[in-house]
């Protein structure tokens, strides 16, 4: 160890009460940051995961039908100045197979799958419920919305006569796996389908309304032979979805919507949360800086004779500067290391103690190692910056005045 390290450590060790006090102060500050940050990350991650559990990252929808102005009006004919919005009939995406082939070649898109979505009635005996019928290509679609993970009974099998339904619908219609169910589409087409699986998405509405059938089954029920109503995609980088969506729109000429746009409110809530957390972080860093600075300012005064004698013996101004900057770094780094342990300990206790009513965890913990690296680096840098003033004071001390005290 060089002179500066040895001396900085000895000075801190000798003033151990001061050192302990400020390290504890830094540790509490950093502990709060680590606790909040880890909790916020876990909560947000969990929140986003729940939101995306039942939806694609990007969806391509057919263009909406809009009223077009009439051209070449004959003179003397006056039209009312009211333009009625046309009804949006179920339409297929033009050239969807070409678009899908094009999208599958992109490196930033993980999964692409066509779907058909239509409103229908599920009927059994004299009970009927309105449902959203989603025609899917099971293999690809299940990589986007992981229905098989939520299946409580049956197999995620989708032949042309199968239907996967939610637990609430199964309860209301009194069906279970293997039972038959009549599905009447808006086009009046009726099919008798077999329940191949029942899922529970943890959301009553979804469990009641969402149903999945094979793509062809949905196409025939919705009278959209060979057509699809949307193309669903997942991307590798969740938060780059909007950028990818815009690039997809630009390259294919169809409208692509990302989950970021369709969940704009959720996103603004998350960023507001982030902002308030950053503010708190800033103030904690500031109080850490003032704490370290005040301890070192006192230390320079207390040690002025030591500094003087070291200078007399041949310590350069830079050596003295480094001794005190290092003390700042050590106080910051040590406090942050203790604070990280404290924060993560508190979070584990919180996670273990605060539970949902059914005893399951409030949210899954996701703590990244980068959080600690970040906190410790930030606190160390803060310590060095805070030590700048006392260190410069120490370096500039006139040895004669310093020795005299």
């Amino acid at each position, binding site marked *: *160890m*060089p*002179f500066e390290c*040895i*001396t900085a450590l*000895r*000075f801190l*060790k*000798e003033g151990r009460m001061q050192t302990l006090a400020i390290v504890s102060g830094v540790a509490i500050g950093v502990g709060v940051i680590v606790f909040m940050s880890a909790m916020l990350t876990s909560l947000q991650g969990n929140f986003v995961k729940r939101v995306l559990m039942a939806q694609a990252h990007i969806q391509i929808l057919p263009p909406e039908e809009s009223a077009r102005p009439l051209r070449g009006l004959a003179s003397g004919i006056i039209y009312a100045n009211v333009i009625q919005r046309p009804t949006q009939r179920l339409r297929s995406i033009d050239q969807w197979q070409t678009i899908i082939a094009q999208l599958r070649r992109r490196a930033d898109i993980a999964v692409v799958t066509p779907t058909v979505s239509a409103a229908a009635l599920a009927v059994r005996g004299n009970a009927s419920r309105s449902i959203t019928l989603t025609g899917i290509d099971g293999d690809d679609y299940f990589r986007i919305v992981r229905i098989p993970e939520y299946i409580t009974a049956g197999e995620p099998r989708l032949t042309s006569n199968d239907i996967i339904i939610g637990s609430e619908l199964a309860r209301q219609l009194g069906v279970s796996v293997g039972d038959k169910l009549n599905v009447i589409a808006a086009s009046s087409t009726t099919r008798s389908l077999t329940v191949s699986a029942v899922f529970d998405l943890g959301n009553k509405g979804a469990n009641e309304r969402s149903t999945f059938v094979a793509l062809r089954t949905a196409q025939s029920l919705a009278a959209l032979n060979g057509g699809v109503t949307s193309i669903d995609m997942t991307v590798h980088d969740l938060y780059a979805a909007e950028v990818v969506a815009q690039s997809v729109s630009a390259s294919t000429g169809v409208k692509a919507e990302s989950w970021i746009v369709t969940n704009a409110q959720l996103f603004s809530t998350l960023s507001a949360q982030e902002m308030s957390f950053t503010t708190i972080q800033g103030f904690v860093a500031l109080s850490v800086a003032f704490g370290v600075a005040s301890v070192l300012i006192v230390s320079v005064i207390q040690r002025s*004779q*030591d500094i*003087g*004698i*070291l*200078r*007399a*013996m*041949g*310590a*350069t*101004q830079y*050596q003295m500067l480094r001794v005190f900057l290092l003390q700042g770094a050590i106080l910051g780094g040590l406090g942050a290391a203790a604070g990280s342990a404290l924060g993560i300990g508190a979070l584990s206790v919180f996670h273990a103690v605060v539970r949902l009513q059914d005893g399951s965890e409030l949210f899954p913990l996701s703590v990244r190692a980068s959080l600690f690296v970040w906190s410790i680096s930030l606190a160390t840098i803060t310590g060095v910056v805070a030590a700048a003033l006392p260190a410069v004071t120490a370096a500039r001390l006139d*040895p*004669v005045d310093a*020795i005299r005290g």
Partner: protein
Amino acid sequence: MRSVAESGHILTLEQVTKTYALGRPNALEVLHGIDMALDRGEFVALVGPSGSGKSTLLNIIGLLDRPTTGRLLIRGADTSAMNDAALTALRNESIGFVFQQSYLLSAFSAIENVMMPMLLKHEFPTEAMRTRAGELLADMGLSAWADHPASNLSGGQQQRVAIARALAMSPALILADEPTGNLDTHSADSVFEMLKKANTELGTTFLIVTHNEALAERCDRTLEVVDGQLTSAVH
């Protein structure tokens, strides 16, 4: 006539003055044109009443303070043009200090205090430094105390550690400001003998500020500062 700079003196002062608060109405000149020279191996006492400028002179000689005018030469090298880093390096290698109080670093053990000037020069501690410091402490009769915290030693012991520390870099010159001023007669004698021993055995030049006439008489010669001027040698 040969100039003092060429004569091979360890230390030469030429017309050194020191004025505090220079350029202000309360400016005070405390040293008025000091000329002096010390030869290798001399053991010199510096005496004078309080406030006569002894300490100021010692600080200037020790490169802790700069003269307002005049020249200070250490082994023939003019220090007036040197920057702080060069002065610091010169101080580290050529000058040892012993003060009235030992000013040991309380955060370090006795042997580490002795090693400190070597550590400041070479940055990283080595076994050779420890051996050298151990030998110096043994010379001072303090081997048993080498690893004790400096603050646990008695006043006399601390002062002997301070002497060992001053000798660590084998400096050409040791400046001692009232080195025995805080010690009882027995300890003072012992400390003085240590200084004398280093002078005779190592040939180190000593300049000792003292109020103690008996002590001054045991030196090779005595310089007296009165009102900021060096009077002729007392003996």
